[in-house]
Structures are given as C-alpha cells and as structure tokens.
C-alpha cells in the first residue's frame, strides 16, 4: 500500500537555527498537509497545500514557517530561527482529489530544539 514517507525521523537543532523537514506524499495525491503534535497533546493543523500554493494555514503558521514543493515528489516544511517551543512531532499528510477525503499520515519527524 502506498505510504507517506518523512525524513529525518528525529532532528536535533540548536535554537535559532533553520530546519527543513521533508516529506514524500503518496504519488497521485493532490492535497498536502503539515501538522504538529506537542508531546501528549492533540494534533494541530499547520498548513494545507494544493496546486503549488498554500490553500489554508493556521495561526501557528507564522512568518517563521514556509512550505515548498521543490520538485514533483517532495514537500518540505522550513522553520527559520527555531524556538524552544517548536519542539514537537511534525506530521506530513496527503489526501486524494478533494480536501475532505481521508488523509494519510507519515510516521512523523520528532524535532528537538536545544
């Protein structure tokens, strides 16, 4: 069965550094998402991406965040100048033809900011 893959599985970064989280969505999916989950808390929506542009973003997704689809397969989340409170699990997800179709999640990247 097709999977969403994320790399790295764990990223440790010094506060203030930039970090790029990478995702390869399922190949025939059109909608891509990033979510954040602080340890023990709920999954929080960050951003959705369709047709090479952001379609929705939450208030968490401020100017320090950006997303990009640099080629036909990768979908990246960049965090500039990381803060301690950015420490969380970051999940990438993709869904098929419409925004209300089930989302398929990757295994996540655990981001630890020191």
């Amino acid at each position, binding site marked *: 069965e097709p999977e969403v893959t994320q790399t790295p599985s764990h990223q440790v970064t010094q506060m203030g550094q930039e970090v790029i989280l990478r995702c390869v969505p399922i190949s025939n999916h059109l909608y891509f998402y990033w979510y954040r989950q602080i340890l023990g808390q709920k999954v929080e929506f960050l951003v959705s991406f369709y047709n090479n542009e952001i379609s*929705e973003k939450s208030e968490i997704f401020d100017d320090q965040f950006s997303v990009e689809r640099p080629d036909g397969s990768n979908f990246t989340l960049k965090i500039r100048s990381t803060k301690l409170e950015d420490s969380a699990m970051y999940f990438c997800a993709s869904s098929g033809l419409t925004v209300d179709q089930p989302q398929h999640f990757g295994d996540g990247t655990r981001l630890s900011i020191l």
Partner: protein
Amino acid sequence: GQQVMQIPQYQHVQEGEDFTTYCNSSTTLSNIQWYKQRPGGHPVFLIQLVKSGEVKKQKRLTFQFGEAKKNSSLHITATQTTDVGTYFCAGVTDKLIFGTGTRLQVFP
C-alpha cells in the same frame, strides 16, 4: 476559531468492557473523520461520516454522526488490549480540525 472538543480526555477500562468517546464541534461540519493513534505512532484513518444521523459499524466499533452535524461518537464494544491508543475525531469544513482526543487504556 473553530473548536472540536472530545470527552473524556482519558478512559481506563477492563478488557471486555465497553468504551465511548464523544466529539463536539463549535460549528456545523460537512463531514467528520475518525483517526486512531497508537502510542508512538501516527494518526491512522478509521472512517468518515457524511450524512446527518449516519451510523456506521466496523466490527466492534460503531460511529455516529449527529442530526445537526455538530457532534459524533465512537463506541467500542467489548474492548481488547489492541484497542489501546488515542482516538481523534476530525471535523471537516474548509480544513481538517482535530479534536482534543480520548486516550484509551485497556487493562487485561
């Protein structure tokens, strides 16, 4: 902003007992999805409900969507240790908003 709340936050049951989690949205939803997240894992899609008053079953799991399309429930009959995890509802409007989740622990 739109909020999706779930109760209870935690539930500990003895294996064989039933379990129910309730989900309430502050706004009317176009549909609702349910996901299960095992400890240390990622959310996995379980089911989607679209119609007002819809009820769907998956083996021991029964999902219900309220008449007003603002609430939903998941009921598990005769829980097993494999049911352990956090159950999230996710309301769909123009994006997917996850509920606060109910963490289920099942004791053998």
